[in-house]
């Protein structure tokens, strides 16, 4: 089996790419996709550790993370549609109503 270091580094890199996406991109949908990327990086770490510990708990938690991701994307996309209907934009910098 491939060493744990490799899987953990891969997970860390994908997570950091997700963080970069949230910071750099201003399109709300792409920021949302980057959040999904981060969730998947964490899932990868769970699976890699679980299989090395011989424990099923990691897989069960990944199952729950997927469920939460589904709920989160349904509500988040509903919010995006609702905002687009009122403001005609998905650009994060133009949504500055509550900004100081």
């Amino acid at each position, binding site marked *: 089996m491939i060493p744990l270091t490799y899987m*953990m580094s*891969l997970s860390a*890199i994908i997570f950091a790419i997700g963080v*970069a996406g949230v910071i750099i991109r201003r399109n709300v949908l792409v920021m949302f996709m980057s959040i999904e990327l981060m969730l998947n990086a964490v899932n990868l770490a769970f699976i890699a550790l679980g299989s090395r*510990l011989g424990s099923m708990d990691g*897989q069960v938690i990944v199952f729950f993370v997927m*469920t939460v991701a589904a709920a989160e994307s349904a*509500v988040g996309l509903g919010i995006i549609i609702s905002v687009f209907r009122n403001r005609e934009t998905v650009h994060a910098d133009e949504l500055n109503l509550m900004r100081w």
Partner: protein
Amino acid sequence: MPPFLYLFLGALAIVSALGVVVQRNPIHCLLSLISTLMVIAILFIGEDAVVVGFLQIIVYAGAIMVLFLFVIWLLNLQTESGPTGHIVLKTLGSLAAAALAAELSLFLAAPHLQVKMIQEPAGYGSLESLAGKLFTDYLVAFEVTSVLLLAAVVGAVALARRMPNAAGEGASDPRAAGAIRAAQASSRVQG
């Protein structure tokens, strides 16, 4: 899986994850994300998490990503033209993300964190073992998940539907609703 396959899949995952961040057309971002999810699903299967790997393909790459696709089509998002964001933000964001990647890699790959390899029990990663764990140790969490999904469904419908106004014509613009109300009031005065 042989080690070179892991290296290949890892490189593929990183390249397609970068594609999510750097591409300008949201559809291309989404396709990159789907390919990342597929590669991660293959890695899951390689790590003996067969059921979760297939769930990842069916639920994540199938259902959730189609939801994203529908929203992109519904909002008719085009390729972003012109400069996308501030250059300072981009530079600082990239540097911060690179620092985060280095820090996480150092921390997570530290030698003292290496776990003792334990021989996987027979049937590890099978549907039976997953379901056994899910319906015994995690039963409460599993049941609470159903409430979460119900709340998400109700919330999504409530957010996405148009608020009906007094005229009954689903105008979401408050000014339009106000104009209709004013017109009704004036017609009542005239009548």
